[in-house]
Structures are given as C-alpha cells and as structure tokens.
C-alpha cells in the first residue's frame, strides 16, 4: 500500500518535472548540417540573448525564435535561456531602450524555421526532435 502510494507520488513528480518535455518530445537545437563548430547550450543561450554572435573564425549566426504562442518557445526560454517568458521580455525591454541590442526575429512557424535552417547555414533554431528528420540537420541535444 505504502509502496504503491510512493510510486504514485514518484510518477506524479516525474510527470510534473518533465512538464512539457514529456508531452512535446525532446527539445533540440538545429543547425545546418555543414556546421562543424562545437555548439553547446551555453553558446546557444548567449546567442539568443544577444551576448555573442559567432566564434572567432566562425560565421555570424542568426538565431531564430518560434512564434510567441508556440509551446516549444516557452520550453526553450525556460530550459535553455533559464528565464521565464516575462523575465525574457524585461531583459529585452532593457536592451532595446538602452540601445544594447534587439531580440532575435521570429519565424512565422516551425516549418519556416526548419526551411531557413536548411537553406542557409547562418540560421539556427530549435525543434521537437520527433517532428523533424534529424538526419538532415546538425542536431545539438541539450542533455
């Protein structure tokens, strides 16, 4: 009885901590397949926060956001940028109105983001691994 209860609590906790991840599949960073650089979550985070744009010898990356209402965007903001959506908005409000930068532009939808990343090696975005053909991209896993 006790162990069943414990198991239930555990699964509830797992479900809660998994949150969107459990529902939406795995969030990954996607880049053009020709990108060789050792991209990692820290670099991607700096890129999306406008703190870095490229490696010394590399190309200038253009990070692409998904639309505001896409649940993946929220997951990306929380998991990779380590901010809540409103914290990220406040961050950009400060940068915009003090002339220190502007937020990454948004793709119209997931398909456009995918298309742009495949067409042009400057673009970088994120996706649900279950909804893309992983072989076509340079995929960076976050865990």
């Amino acid at each position, binding site marked *: 009885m006790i162990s069943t209860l414990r198991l239930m609590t555990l699964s509830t906790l797992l479900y809660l901590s998994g949150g969107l991840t459990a529902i939406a599949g795995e969030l990954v960073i996607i880049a053009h397949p020709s990108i060789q650089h050792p991209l990692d979550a820290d670099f991607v985070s700096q890129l999306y926060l406008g703190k*870095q744009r490229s490696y010394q010898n590399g190309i200038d990356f253009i990070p692409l956001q998904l639309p505001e209402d896409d649940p993946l965007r929220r997951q990306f903001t929380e998991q990779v940028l380590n901010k809540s959506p409103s914290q990220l908005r406040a961050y950009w409000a400060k940068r915009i109105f003090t*002339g220190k930068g502007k937020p990454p532009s948004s793709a119209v939808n997931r398909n456009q983001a995918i298309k742009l990343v495949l067409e042009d090696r400057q673009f970088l975005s994120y996706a649900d691994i279950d909804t893309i053909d992983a072989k076509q991209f340079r995929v960076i896993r976050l865990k």
Partner: protein
Amino acid sequence: MREQNFRHWLALFPCLLILSSISSVKADIDWDLHGFGTLSGAYMDDDAMNQTGSTEINEFERGVQYDVDSKLALQGSLHFNPQFSFTAQAVAPAIDDFEPEIEWGYLSWWVSDALIIRTGRLRRPNYLYSDNLRVGYTYPWVRPPSEVYSRDSQFFASVDAINALYNWTVDDWHFEFETYFGKSSRRADFIAGQSVKTSTRNDFGIFLSMEYDWLNLRFGYQQLPDSTIDTISSVQPLYDGLNVAGFGDIVDDLEVENKQIEYFNFASGIDYDDWLMLFEYIYIPVENSIAPDETSWYLTTGRRFGKWTLHYTYAERKRNNRTDFSAPVREQAALIAPVNPAAAGGLNFLADSIDTTRDLLAIDNESHYIGLRYDFDNPVAIKAELQQINDKRNGYDSELFSVALDFFF
C-alpha cells in the same frame, strides 16, 4: 536676418536632393519603432514631508495623483547597414503635460560583435537602473527605490557623449565594460516646483558588469570634474548678502560652480530559482560646496510565484554636510560686536542663514516597501506597492500607495 534665414533654407535643398536620391537608390533602409509607457495612480496620506523640502518624493502631494509616474515614450531606429544605426527616444511624462523630451538620440557603430561605439545624447548609466529608469516594465517596483533613484539624483540624467560598450565571455562569466566621455546641460526639477539649470563638462565614467548564471555584479565610477548647479532663487539673497558683507570667498565655496562630483556605485543581483535579491549602494562625494555628500542603499528580496512577484525593500538615504562655512562670518561678528552691535547682529543672521541652508539639504530617510507585480502573457505588467517613508531628521512619516500598469512594444 530674414535673408540669412532664406539662404539657410536654400542651402538645405541640395542636401535634401542628395538624401532623397540616396534613399531612393537604397530604399531598403531598415527601421524599427518601439514604445513604452506607464499608467499609474498614487495616494499619499500626508504631505508634511513636502513642507520640509527634504524628501525625494517631493512631487507627491496629499491625496490621489495620476501624473507622477505616468508617461508615454517612442523610440525609432534607422539601420543604415549592419554596422551603423541612428536611434532617437522621446519620453513624454504626464507630469510635464506630456511634453516630449529627447532623452536618447545617438548614432551607433557596431564595430564588431563585442564592441558598440555610440555618440550623441545618452542617458547616464549612473546606477543599475538609471539608463532604463523610465521603462517601468524592466523592474519589479512601481519605481526603483527613491532613496537611490531620487529626483535630484537625476540632475545629470543625460549626457552628450561618446560611449563604448565592450562585451566578452570567460568560461561561464559574461562581462560588459562601458565607458563614456562627455558633457551635459539641462534643466532639472528641484524642490517645491523649482527647477535649476545644471551643466557639466569633461565627464567620464567607467562601468563593469559581471554576470554568472544567477549572479550579477556591477561596479561604477564617474567623475564630473566641472559641474555647475545654478543657485535656486530662494538662496540667491543669502549669497548677495554675503557678497555685500565682503564674504565673496564663502560664496565661492558654497556655490556648486565648476566643482567636482564623483559617483561610486556597487550593485548586486541574485536570481536563483524563484528567489531574487537586489542590493545597491551609492556614494556621491561633492567637492566643498553647499551640496552635501550622499550615501544611500537599498536591499530588495522577492519571490516569484508563477506570474506573481512579491517583494520587500528596505532603503536608506543619508545626505550630510559637516563643513562649517559660517565660522569666518561669526568670528567677524564677534570682532565688531563691541563697536557696532547692529552690524554684528546682521552678520550673525547671515551666519545662521548659511547653517540653515546647509542643514536644509541634509537628509536622513528610510523606507520600507512592499510590492506585488503581476505579469500578463504579453509585455504588460501591473504593480501595486506600499511605501512607508520615515524622515528621521524632521520626525515625519508618511505612506505612499501606488499602482501602475507598465507596457512596451
């Protein structure tokens, strides 16, 4: 004169022609438009503190007011190419009848990923929130603690400068170094509806921010070696009296004219899980003058509960001037008292006036703030805040309740 004006207009023509041809060839000049604003209401239960003139919330009067924090602002940028852009920001505060002031107007040169050089009119980054002080959406309070962000600390709010901003990353630390050199000239609000003209030149500042995941540190130093704050009309008779009595050197001492003002700032922010903590300390020594040195700080702790943020702040503000300006006047009075008691009485009156004026500018305040912020799913937040202010020098206290709606686009 008329003809000269006409010639100026004539000279504009070729410029306009060149400009229009450039823009028609390169019609793809990128531009963007942003804006922000605040709608607020505040209620103060006692305006006794206003009467002393020693409070930093002197815009507030007893009762409800809608215009103190309310404002609208627009910002437009023209991006000539990826390296060069021009940005202008106009802020129209309700308290100035929505008359817009250009607070930012500058040319940016994005030299590289790491370096931005800007020149033009910029807000001075005195403290952590100084350059975005108008943008309510960017901080948890209705307005940053007035002990540090008081109206008169905004005397030198903007600067015409050349400014460089350099970013770099070492391991998990992100660094931002900012420096400027410039001058300023503006009319600023002072106590009891009086405004004063302020000017500075050869100002410079250096600022270093360090950021590590949940921790943020900021160090700032500014030197305004040649600052002038015009004497307010109510003090002028005192200076006139001293000049007539032959104490012109004391007037030179008292006046904030070509004096050095320094700003030291340390700020630290922690944002760990849903907990936040902010600490900021400022120290502003002013070269020998009627203007007191200032030491102020605040500590904010808060916690986010989903879209709600609950926070508490304790803040202190101290301005003090211990210089004994009146001693020579009193000595002179003592000397002539046996021969001319009437003149001695006059001198003593002057000496008392010096002391009174000096002490009027001293401040010893503390505040407790408790506030709540709610974030909507779009760039809109509403805030409510209660500030309990204690004027320890004059023995007054007062409550200020404020609500605000902040947005940007």
